[in-house]
């Protein structure tokens, strides 16, 4: 953490995040310049919003602030062309968003997630079994990345035989974030298209032969009278889960372990009393907030704290700054697994219609993961420097070598 708040930081340059989030600069913006105009090399610039209350208010105001208009990134066509990702729930505005979200929510319920928990626990233990005798591993690649995607495949009913292929696609797609780790940008785009086609065909098959998976449920009419999702809508939802849900959960898991390594007293508390894990997960989500920002576009001129944001101006909601706002989280730079949360932390967005649809699933996965980690790898510690994702929008950990006292696999 930096103590030189006045030093300007280029929030567009991914290298500004090379050593972690520039929290000191965000502290300065939040306190002195909460509606800050920041230059951008591709266009005039953008507004950086850093106060928790403002991030929440704009997130909820889908009448005046659009996701659809210009997408959710500051750079055009980040990840994929805007026209492509506009089909995703993340880039829709009401009323299209309302209808699709309601249709999904009626089928993707807390009960769906609860039913998955035994399988999540089993997979988590199997993943740890793979490394526990070695006493060392890359926590990011060997553990954190394994669970979320396996769960998405499980949830969506991807046949066992196809899962390695789905993993490969997701890995290629996710490397969009970091030019230094992607071999070829075309690989990611081709993987996107191939996986898209795969899910459309899978959805068509499940329309013919429904199972007890989420794709089959999404493809069926429900008692609420909503139309079922089309194959395209199912494919878009799958992509959203497998890119957004997979990467964010993976990186949060890494940040969580790192926070526990860095705060041995907190880890001790968690080991002594595993009932603290659910609250610890909220603190991990706040502390290691993975999505730095998402963009909104005002559909009319909006005045905030005496500053006029014009219609069409890019507005970046910095969740990562909101999560360290002392107005929302007293003593925000302290990692405290017993923090008393009055409201939501901002790792799942600022609230309102775009609040993360996968939050319940992510929370359950993280809870099971940390319950298992404190029990089975209680002394895991860093075995080398971590490698951060090079990105101005995603706070990720690509590699995290750890070492621990070897143990026995949980099952033969």
């Amino acid at each position: 953490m930096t103590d030189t708040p006045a030093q300007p930081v280029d929030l567009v340059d991914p290298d500004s995040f090379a050593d972690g989030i520039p929290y000191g600069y965000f502290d300065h913006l939040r306190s002195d310049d909460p509606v800050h105009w920041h230059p951008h090399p591709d266009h005039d610039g953008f507004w950086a919003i850093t106060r928790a209350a403002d991030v929440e208010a704009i997130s909820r105001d889908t009448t005046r602030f659009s996701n659809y208009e210009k997408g959710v990134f500051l750079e055009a066509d980040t990840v994929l062309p805007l026209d492509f990702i506009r089909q995703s729930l993340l880039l829709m505005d009401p009323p299209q968003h309302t209808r699709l979200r309601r249709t999904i929510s009626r089928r993707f319920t807390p009960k769906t997630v609860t039913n998955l928990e035994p399988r999540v626990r089993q997979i988590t233990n199997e993943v740890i079994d793979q490394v526990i005798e070695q006493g060392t591993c890359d926590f990011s690649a060997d553990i954190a990345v394994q669970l979320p995607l396996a769960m998405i495949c499980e949830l969506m009913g991807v046949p066992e035989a196809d899962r390695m292929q789905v993993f490969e696609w997701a890995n290629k797609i996710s490397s969009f974030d970091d030019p230094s780790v992607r071999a070829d940008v075309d690989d990611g785009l081709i993987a996107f298209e191939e996986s898209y086609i795969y899910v459309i065909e899978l959805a068509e098959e499940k329309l013919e032969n429904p199972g007890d998976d989420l794709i089959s449920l999404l493809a069926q009419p429900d008692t609420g009278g909503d139309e079922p999702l089309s194959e395209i809508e199912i494919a878009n939802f799958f992509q959203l889960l497998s890119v957004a849900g997979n990467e964010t959960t993976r990186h949060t898991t890494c940040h969580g372990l790192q926070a526990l390594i860095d705060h041995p007293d907190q880890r001790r508390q968690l080991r002594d009393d595993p009932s603290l894990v659910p609250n610890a997960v909220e603190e991990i989500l706040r502390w290691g907030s993975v999505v730095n920002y998402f963009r909104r576009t005002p559909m009319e001129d909006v005045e905030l704290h005496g500053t006029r944001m014009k219609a069409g101006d890019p507005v970046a909601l910095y969740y990562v700054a909101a999560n360290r706002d002392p107005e929302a989280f007293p003593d925000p730079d302290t990692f405290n697994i017993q923090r008393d949360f009055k409201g939501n932390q901002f790792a799942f967005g600022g609230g309102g219609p775009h609040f993360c649809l996968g939050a319940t699933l992510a929370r359950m996965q993280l809870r099971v993961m940390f319950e298992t980690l404190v029990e089975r790898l209680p002394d895991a510690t860093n075995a080398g420097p971590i490698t951060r994702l090079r990105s101005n929008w995603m706070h990720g950990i690509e590699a995290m070598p750890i070492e621990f006292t070897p143990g026995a696999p949980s099952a033969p």
Partner: protein
Amino acid sequence: MPYLKDEAEIDKYIGEIFRRSFVHPDTEARVKKAGLRMRVDYAEPDTVMMVDMQDLTVVVGSDAEDLEWDVALAMQADDGHKFWLGKLNFTVAMTKGKIRTKGPVAELLKLLPMAKYLFAQYQEILAEDGRDDLLAVQR
């Protein structure tokens, strides 16, 4: 020198892919379900192709220019030829601006699962006409 030398070749080879797709058992249902009116503007050679998946018709040339469309694409005819040979990825081409689109792109995505069947048909069409020269395109 473009791969397809004129409007007639575009009609004869690329237009034929769609005519066959309307009746081929692997693609017929998907085409009818999509029900799209797709316009493609080709350059070098310059022409317009309209594929109407409601009326199951393909029109190439000036007659296609004023027809109503739901989604439109524009590309070099050489890129169209490479696409149908399976040597140009649609998403990559769109991202790089080689294929430009107007209208709801999601509607086009619906068609992608049948592309693999159509690639095979394009090869058949060219082979039937003895056009090994056109089949031998490098990436």
